[in-house]
Structure formats: structure tokens, C-alpha cells
């Protein structure tokens, strides 16, 4: 059979991409982009003026060939027939990333910041390209259905996700572990492994499919969306199961974010105690930060501790992925027959997990960025420090004029050193200065100077930035395609079990970690 459809769709997609590029590159789209930037600089302009051009030309040329050329049965025909659907998904991912997500942010900004969390509602609800991409895919398949010419391409989405997961390994480094406190490692290790084990156990008791239990355990145990996406292909999760897991953890996180600070205040927890609890009990990174800032709006001590616990949790991800891979293979095989476990694992173990481990190992050696980093960010005020990044005399005078407003001695000392040297001198000073900015003691102008000084020493490695961009695009592509595989019927079939199990495990983890924190954590970690 010949798979390539003689449809003008791919050609039209190419022309739409080219039109998008032209409107952005010629400046005709600028007023709209200014609106999306909400008073700041529109951050996707360089992408918008390059990516649609390359893919637009590619799609238009292949689209013309598919429409006017002759096609014969064979491998080339089969695989090239997926290009139209792939470009369709990519076009939607572009629209979500460049226009829909920024528009949602503009609307959120109009509502103002939520309480003391310091964040807008889109960030707190996790309404980023991930969720919006899945939602868009769901709307397309349920309202319009997938056109026949795009059906082969939609089946490329899992390939995109797997490639993204392998590259995800470049963002983590085992070298980071040595900087973390012993207690955070023990606590996170216990609670992550405990949560994963509990979800798997509850899942078996409540008869949910292994794939659903597997993907939910990673999401509930580790850190939300990335962990869910990484674990999904390992346990052969269905699209609807992934969407359910992401929905469950985000909604649970939103609830925790508002309830945790109230309980913390009722119990009179110290900043360190609350940071440790939030970093252990709340699932999504943005929500951990939101809760920490809500608890301590005038400083950064709580956030710092919560970040340490959060980082520790993320670093457990490779272990969880391997565990789930082995668990799933053993469980699926043991249902049918007694087999040689070692041989089955060798035959069925997902190769892309090894790719993830390989990238993680390479990242740990420091080949992509200094080994001592978290997701590519590291402190550097010595080598490569550019002269232009030093504070100017004018900026120093802004800080000097407001120096007396600063009350805390550690903040005074850090700013004094900054004024003396023109740059932040240590990681500790950087943390203190971030706390001072957060406390809003100084004017906006002075805080702007402090922010500049902070950005000058906290670098994101260029390679890591590039990897993060690739991962974002691959995930956006994969998740839009994944959304296109979720029908209303499939959602009904999955039922409400994931939310029930998620709620039980989440509540157990929150309560137990609160008890452990109150018993073991004093002021220092």
C-alpha cells in the first residue's frame, strides 16, 4: 500500500510557517509581540525569525513533492508519509510556545500576583507549554479529529519524547550531590522511594494497569512533569495516563502550596523546617518555590532550604527510572509465565534509559558545563568575568544612597563587599543579596542594580542552554502529539483512580514528612 497522501496540507503548513517568519522578520508583527511581552522584551524573537524559515522551506518543498510527485510502495514512502503529521504537530507546538503561552501569561499578569507567593497564576497552576500543548492536542482530536494525512505523523510524538528524555540527562549532575546536606539526601531518598513504592502497592491493590501505576509513581515520588515524561515510555504508559498523572500532581501541588504555609504558621515552624517540609512534600518545583516564598516573603532562607531538598529529589530520577524499568519488565512477564528474569530484562530493558544514563554520566564529568552545577547554573566571578559587568560608579552611588535602609548585618556586609569590588564575591553573598532583593527593602532602582550584580555571577552554561532549548522543543512536540491521542472515551475509561491514589500517597507523604521534619530538623540542615 502507498502511505503518502496526495494532499496540499504539508505545502500549506510550509507556507503558514514562512508567512509567520516573514511577518516577524519584517517587523509587521511587532505590535502584537510587544503586547505578548507585557512591557518586557519579547524573548522568542530570535526563534521566531529563524525556525519557521528553515522548517517552512522544508515543509513547502516536501509538500510540493508529495502533492505533485508520484509515490511507490516501500519504506521510503512509509516513513516520509509521517512528515506531514510531524510538521502539523510542530506548527501547533510553535503556536503554543510563541503565542498561546505568552498570551496566557499576559492574562495572568492582568490578575496580579497571588498573595505572598510572588508569582502569577499561570506559573502556580503550571500553565506552561507542557500543559497548554497537551490541552491543545486534546481539543484538536476531540473537536476536529486528526486528518488522515496527519495520522502517521502523530505516531512520531513518542520518538520526540524519548529523544528529549535522553537529552534530559545533560541537565543533571551527580557532582551536585556532594554539595547537599546529608539529611536532605536521607529524607528525600526515603520519601521518594517510599512514595514510588506506595503508589505501586496501592495501584496493584486497586487494580489499575501497571503502566498507570508506574507513571503515577514517578510523578508522585520525584518531581512532577519531567519525571512523568521520563517514566512514561519505560512503563509503556498510554497518553491518557500521562495526562492524568500530570493533572493529578499539578492540582495536588496547588492545594499544598496554599495549605502548607497555613500549617507552618500554626505550628510556628522555623524557616529551615518549613523549607525542608515544602521541598519534600510538594511535588512541582515552581510550587515548592511558591510555598517557600509565601511562608517567608521578606527573605530567602526558606526558599534556599526548599531548593536544596528539591534538587536532591530531582537527582534521584535516574534511580527511579531504572527501578521502574526493571519493575515493569518483571511484572508484565511474570503475569504470563515464569521466565529467566535476567534474560527478559536484557531483551526488554528500554535502550533509551541507557541513553539517559549515558548523558547523565557525561554531564557529571563536566563535559557540557562545570560539574558543580544544577541544571546548568553555576557561580563564577573569576574567569570570563567581563569588565562591562562590573557595577558602574552611577550604580554604586544608587546603592550607597540607600545603604542605611538595610537593617540586617549580613546584608550590610554583602552589599559593602559588592560596593568595594563591583561584583558579588561569593555564593553566600549572592544568596544574601537575593534575600535582600526579595525583601523589597530598597527602591526598585536599587533592586535593579542588585539583580544585575546577581545575574553577572550566576551563569547558565551555553551548552546547557542549548540542550534545554532542544528538550523544550522535543517535549512540546511530543506532548502536543500525545494530547492528540487522548479522546474523551479514553479519559472515561481511565476513570478517577489516579486522583484517588495520588491523593492518598500525597497526603501520607505530607503528613509523614511533617512529623520527620518536626522531630529531626532544627535550624541547620
Amino acid at each position, binding site marked *: 500500500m502507498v502511505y503518502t497522501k496526495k494532499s496540499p496540507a504539508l505545502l500549506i503548513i510550509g507556507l503558514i510557517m514562512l508567512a509567520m517568519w516573514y511577518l516577524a522578520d519584517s517587523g509587521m508583527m511587532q505590535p502584537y509581540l510587544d503586547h505578548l511581552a507585557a512591557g518586557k522584551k519579547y524573548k522568542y524573537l530570535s526563534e521566531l525569525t529563524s525556525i519557521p524559515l528553515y522548517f517552512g522551506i522544508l515543509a513547502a518543498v516536501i509538500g510540493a513533492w508529495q502533492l505533485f510527485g508520484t509515490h511507490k510502495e516501500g519504506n521510503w514512502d512509509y516513513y516520509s508519509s509521517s512528515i506531514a503529521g510531524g510538521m502539523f504537530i510542530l506548527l501547533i507546538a510553535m503556536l503554543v510556545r510563541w503565542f498561546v503561552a505568552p498570551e496566557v501569561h499576559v492574562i495572568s499578569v492582568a490578575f496580579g500576583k497571588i498573595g505572598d507567593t510572588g508569582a502569577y497564576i499561570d506559573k502556580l497552576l503550571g500553565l506552561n507549554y507542557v500543559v497548554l500543548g497537551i490541552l491543545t492536542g486534546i481539543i484538536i482530536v476531540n473537536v476536529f479529529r486528526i486528518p488522515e494525512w496527519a495520522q502517521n505523523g502523530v505516531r512520531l510524538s513518542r*520518538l520526540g519524547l524519548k*529523544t528529549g528524555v535522553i537529552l534530559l540527562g545533560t541537565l543533571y549532575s551527580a557532582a551536585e550531590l556532594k554539595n547537599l546536606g546529608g539529611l536532605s539526601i536521607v529524607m528525600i531518598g526515603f520519601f521518594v522511594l517510599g512514595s514510588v513504592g506506595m503508589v505501586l502497592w496501592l495501584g496493584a491493590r486497586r487494580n489499575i494497569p501497571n503502566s498507570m501505576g508506574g507513571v503515577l509513581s514517578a510523578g508522585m515520588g520525584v518531581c512532577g512533569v519531567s519525571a512523568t515524561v521520563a517514566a512514561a515510555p519505560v512503563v509503556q504508559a*498510554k497518553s491518557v495516563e500521562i495526562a492524568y498523572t500530570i493533572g493529578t500532581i499539578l492540582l495536588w501541588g496547588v492545594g499544598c502550596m496554599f495549605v502548607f504555609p497555613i500549617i507552618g504558621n500554626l505550628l510556628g515552624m522555623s524557616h529551615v523546617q518549613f523549607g525542608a517540609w515544602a521541598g519534600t512534600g510538594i511535588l512541582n518545583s515552581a510550587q515548592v518555590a511558591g510555598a517557600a516564598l509565601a511562608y517567608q516573603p521578606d527573605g530567602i532562607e526558606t526558599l534556599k532550604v526548599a531548593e536544596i531538598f528539591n534538587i536532591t529529589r530531582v537527582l534521584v530520577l535516574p534511580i527511579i527510572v531504572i527501578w521502574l524499568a526493571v519493575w515493569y519488565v518483571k511484572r508484565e512477564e511474570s503475569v504470563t509465565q515464569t521466565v529467566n528474569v535476567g534474560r527478559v530484562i536484557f531483551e526488554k530493558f528500554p*535502550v533509551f534509559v541507557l*541513553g539517559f544514563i549515558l548523558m547523565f554520566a557525561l554531564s557529571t564529568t563536566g563535559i557540557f558545563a562545570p560539574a558543580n552545577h544544577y541544571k546548568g547554573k553555576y557561580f563564577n566571578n573569576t574567569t570570563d568575568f567581563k569588565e562591562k559587568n562590573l557595577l558602574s560608579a552611577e550604580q554604586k552611588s544608587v546603592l550607597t544612597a540607600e545603604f542605611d535602609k538595610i537593617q540586617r548585618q549580613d546584608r550590610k556586609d554583602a552589599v559593602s563587599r559588592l560596593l568595594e569590588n563591583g561584583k558579588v564575591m561569593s555564593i553566600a553573598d549572592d544568596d544574601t543579596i537575593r534575600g535582600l532583593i526579595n525583601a523589597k527593602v530598597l527602591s526598585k532602582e536599587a533592586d535593579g542594580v542588585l539583580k544585575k550584580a546577581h545575574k553577572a555571577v550566576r551563569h547558565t552554561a551555553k551548552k546547557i542552554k*542549548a540542550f534545554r532549548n532542544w528538550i523544550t522543543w522535543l517535549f512540546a512536540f511530543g506532548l502536543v502529539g500525545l494530547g492528540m*491521542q487522548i479522546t474523551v472515551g479514553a479519559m472515561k475509561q481511565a476513570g478517577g483512580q489516579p486522583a484517588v491514589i495520588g491523593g492518598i500517597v500525597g497526603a501520607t507523604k505530607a503528613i509523614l514528612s511533617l512529623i520527620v521534619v518536626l522531630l529531626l530538623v532544627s535550624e541547620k540542615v
Partner: protein
Amino acid sequence: MAEEQPKYDRGSALSIFGSDRREDFMALIFALIIAFGVYVTH
């Protein structure tokens, strides 16, 4: 694995490839090409 998807005579409802392992290897090849590209150009 079908989620109300049409039946495919090649691949499955979730993948155009004949087996998961083939899809894994393709993902690995793409990832290595991207990683090499990033390493060389940045």
C-alpha cells in the same frame, strides 16, 4: 495499547516503528547527533 485508535498494518497506535527497541535506538541516534552538534557548536 490501543486507545480507540485505528489499526495500523505497520507499527502500532503509538509508534510508526515496528518495535519499541527500534524506536529507542532511533531516539538514541537522534539524541547523540544533537548532543554532538551542541558540543561542537557551543
